[in-house]
């Protein structure tokens, strides 16, 4: 079955992973900007990163018939540094016109501090100013509930925000309902230890219904699985779900959300997509 991995940090993965993803039906990935595992030394490191995401990765993916798109931001883990945030936010507009940039992300909160919140809201302003889609990271573990609630309520108070243009990712059992109730798109990321397993993602789809829900691998430099979506497909079939529902989750829904950007070209089965 063809699928779109809406959240994959391919800069952290080898070319072998693109190969495996292509073999298992991946036709497109979108790569949010994220934390490299250490705080970067300054704004020029981000300029280099954004250039990499918009040149090298699309070319590497194209060799396997996988379309590669990206999202740009200063990630939440570095959002505490307000001066760095100001410098990086000033850099982003010059990259927004590149053909594979879909929006601003993954922005959000990490430990849910005042500075992180200010940096998050600055990114939202940038997205609104440039009419960009928004991809949101919700915090880890014990911080997820409060961080998600703070984010969702802040966005819901802003009449300029169209919830249909916002993906709130890394949802779990205690946060998905509040995200969906406010009309946002909701993402389940399939991680081996934290976030949602394929089985738990399926539970939530069964309970909340398939509308505005997507699944993704969120594969990165940590313990993660670039072919988590095929694993999800297998488990959904074992659970007795038909291909219509499964395809909606792994292809139809992400395509619907991403197609709100005029740059996103819908991959058709068996056809390699050029994002040039």
């Amino acid at each position, binding site marked *: 079955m063809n699928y779109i991995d809406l959240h994959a940090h391919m800069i952290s993965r080898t070319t072998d992973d693109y190969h495996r993803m292509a073999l298992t039906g991946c036709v497109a990935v979108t790569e949010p900007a994220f934390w490299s595992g250490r705080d970067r030394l300054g704004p020029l490191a981000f300029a280099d990163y954004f250039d990499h995401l918009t040149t090298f990765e699309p070319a590497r993916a194209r060799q396997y018939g996988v379309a590669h798109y990206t999202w740009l931001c200063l990630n939440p883990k570095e959002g505490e540094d307000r001066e760095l945030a100001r410098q990086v936010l000033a850099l982003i507009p010059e990259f927004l016109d590149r053909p594979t940039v879909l929006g601003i992300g993954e922005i959000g909160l990490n430990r849910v501090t005042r*500075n992180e919140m200010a940096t998050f809201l600055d990114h939202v302003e940038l997205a609104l100013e440039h009419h960009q889609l928004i991809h949101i990271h919700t915090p880890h573990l014990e*911080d997820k509930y409060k961080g998600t609630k703070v984010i969702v309520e802040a966005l819901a108070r802003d009449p300029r925000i169209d919830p249909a243009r916002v993906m709130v990712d890394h949802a779990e059992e205690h946060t998905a309902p509040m995200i969906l109730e406010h009309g946002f798109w909701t993402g389940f990321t399939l991680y081996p230890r934290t976030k949602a397993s394929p089985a738990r993602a399926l539970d939530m789809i069964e309970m909340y219904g398939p509308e505005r829900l997507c699944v993704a691998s969120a594969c990165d430099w940590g313990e993660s699985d670039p072919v988590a979506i095929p694993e999800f497909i297998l488990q959904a079939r074992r659970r007795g779900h038909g291909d219509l529902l499964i395809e909606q989750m792994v292809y139809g829904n992400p395509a619907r959300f991403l197609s709100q950007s005029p740059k996103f070209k819908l991959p058709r089965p068996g056809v390699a997509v050029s994002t040039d």
Partner: protein
Amino acid sequence: MDDYSNTCPLSQKQLLDDYFMDHRAQLLALAAFLDRFERSNLRNAETDFRIEAFKEALHLLVGPGPERARRVQLVMSDQNLDLLDVRDSQSAYGAPVHPAPAHPHDEQEGAQ
């Protein structure tokens, strides 16, 4: 609370036939971890916030009522919605604690 009855497409018998062994293994892993914790040669974390949250969550598993996963998540969550004045650590701990101690894995984990 929403009613999610009848939303799983498999029968209880099918669930047991297909998934009992997986979850039996997970149950034993959990039991062995708690045994290991008690056998530790240095009992220096008897009331650690993580083990306290763990025990509270275990009660939910054997109690009545739906949405155990959501309720366990809430036990493991910080429900104080106040923003922190400054970042106390880069990584989360898995269970709520205030004030937070230095995180043992700050240099090793935290991918998004």
